[in-house]
């Protein structure tokens, strides 16, 4: 047909080939970037795992050892047998489960109330909820401590759970409300005309549409409860009630010197449940948040 150079036509076999070449180049570039990125991004985790398997003399060496010369499981075994690990793990699980469940339940109720019903002071409450999330993390430690002290909640599981719920609730209300207000009232109206009561509406109609918000809440409650050191340390009275972060902190000992291998093994054990949880949940979460973002 014409003798114009391939890159100027918009149709025909030539452009497709050029396109294919371009696409292959892009694909190659993408793959290389992906590999480089992955190696860099996973390095700290790799180092953590690497150290966890090293015996103590190999841990701190002037020339880093990238693969243990004498890999050992002793750090992990010691963690299980010589410390409060299992006990603290049990406490962490209890507290996290409680925090997740309670945050979801309370969050749902509160955000439903705030988004569906008009009442005085609603705006103030919304602004307060937003403001609370902007407080510096440690600011509420002492006030909450004092309040819980007078309510005799210190040293109890429920006390610690409530402390975490307090942190997660504002965020959860904010996220879930976003999903609630996106639900057109028509759906409720239709259900009400069919004779459904308020609770029925909440449960079968509204709740399923808010699932991404529920998942977001559960993730943040999980992290808050699993990760926190200071609140667990100050609120709990005895060792049998501490959670895992306190256990992890006990490896830092100014007198005997830090057992880095043990600490890294502990960190690995400590991170595993979160990693597993995230791997399972992440797809639903980010899809939900992305969709929810559109709704403002």
């Amino acid at each position, binding site marked *: 047909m014409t003798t114009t150079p391939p890159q100027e036509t918009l149709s025909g076999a030539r452009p497709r080939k050029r396109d294919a070449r371009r696409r292959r180049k892009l694909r190659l570039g993408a793959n290389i*970037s992906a590999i480089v990125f992955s190696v860099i991004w996973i390095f700290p985790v790799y180092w953590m795992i690497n150290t966890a398997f090293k015996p103590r003399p190999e841990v701190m060496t002037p020339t*880093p050892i990238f693969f243990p010369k004498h890999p050992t499981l002793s750090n992990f075994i010691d963690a299980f047998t010589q410390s409060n690990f299992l006990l603290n793990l049990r406490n962490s699980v209890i507290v996290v489960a409680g925090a997740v469940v309670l945050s979801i339940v309370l969050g749902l109720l509160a955000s439903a109330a705030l988004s569906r019903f008009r009442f005085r002071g609603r705006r103030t409450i919304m*602004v307060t909820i937003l*403001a609370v999330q902007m407080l510096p993390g440690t600011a509420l430690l*002492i006030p909450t401590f004092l309040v819980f002290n007078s309510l005799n909640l210190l040293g109890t599981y429920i006390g610690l759970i409530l402390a975490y719920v307090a942190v997660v609730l504002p965020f959860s209300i904010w996220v879930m409300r976003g999903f609630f207000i996106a639900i057109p009232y028509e759906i409720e109206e239709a259900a009400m005309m069919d004779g459904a009561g308020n609770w029925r509406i909440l449960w079968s109609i509204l709740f399923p549409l808010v699932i991404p918000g529920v998942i977001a809440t559960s993730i943040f409650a999980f992290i808050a409860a699993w990760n926190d050191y200071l609140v667990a340390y100050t609120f709990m009275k005895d060792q049998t009630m501490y959670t895992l972060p306190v256990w992890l902190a006990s490896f830092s000992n100014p007198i005997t010197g830090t057992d880095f291998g043990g600490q890294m093994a502990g960190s690995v054990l400590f991170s595993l449940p979160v990693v597993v949880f995230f791997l399972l949940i992440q797809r639903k979460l980010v899809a939900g948040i992305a969709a929810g973002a559109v709704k403002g």
Partner: protein
Amino acid sequence: MSSPIPATSVAGEGVAAADTPGQLHAPRSPQGRKKKDFTPLWLLTPAGLVILAVTIVPIILLIFISFTDYNRRSLFTGEFAVVGLGQYASIFTDVAFWWSLVRTVFFATALVAGSIAIGMAVADLLTRLAPAMRYVVTVVLIFAWAVPNVASSLVWDWLFQPGFGVANWLLTQTHLFGDLTQVNWAQDPVLAYLAIWLLIVWQAVPFIALTLYASQTQVPSEYFEAARLDGASEWGIYWKVAIHFLKPTLLLVTILSVIWDFNVFNQIWLVSQGGPNDATATLGIWTYKTAFVGFHIGEGAAIAVVTTVLLMIFTAYYIRNLVRAGEDL
């Protein structure tokens, strides 16, 4: 009856439909809704009481304490004196406060900019990969995100330790900067910021990248194809096509980042303790030092309140939109 609702208001639906992203789909009924005022009931239910006790009361207490000289003696003996607004005045006249604010704004900006930029790049990268490679990158991101920051801060402290730190050793091996094995990151203001920045960004990018990626996958590929056929460069495609559809998600993710990064504390404290010589003492660090090292709890409370108000001012525009949203219900 009510006006027709755009079909895209059903949750989970894609973004590419004809509505403007970010607009709220507010249902309307001409004569206003049936007003059901549940205030008294709701606030007094068990759930309401729990929420009150656990969130509201400590906040009120915090504000009250911010007007007193509450300190350790007060904790032990219950004695304290109300000092009123004088405490706030002394904060605003304290040069250290203003420097702390400057540092906080600067550092938060650097963190947000870095996380978002890298997050956007990674999200775009994810769209171009084959499923297998994409899975690898996703898993890498998940690992970085999921490692609790208690553990990651420990690893970081150790990676950057002078003498035995791997980071120093690796950098020395590149022969680009000379012998760095003894560099003490925590003692140099710039390096301390850099180390902390790396730690926070390392864990912040996954969430941003994955969320943006999820959003980007919603964009129908026809738009990209059309742009490519028009001869647009990859760069141009990204900026003109992808960003347009990513805007709402970007906004959400940015606001979240601003709030979190403004108040970040753990990572800074663990790496540099606000040093050297307060070079990295952001407002969060300063609050902590006041309230938990010097035990000037009242003053610490006041700083916390001021920090919160400042952050609210910075995000005021978004807050106003958010509160307005849903007001028509």
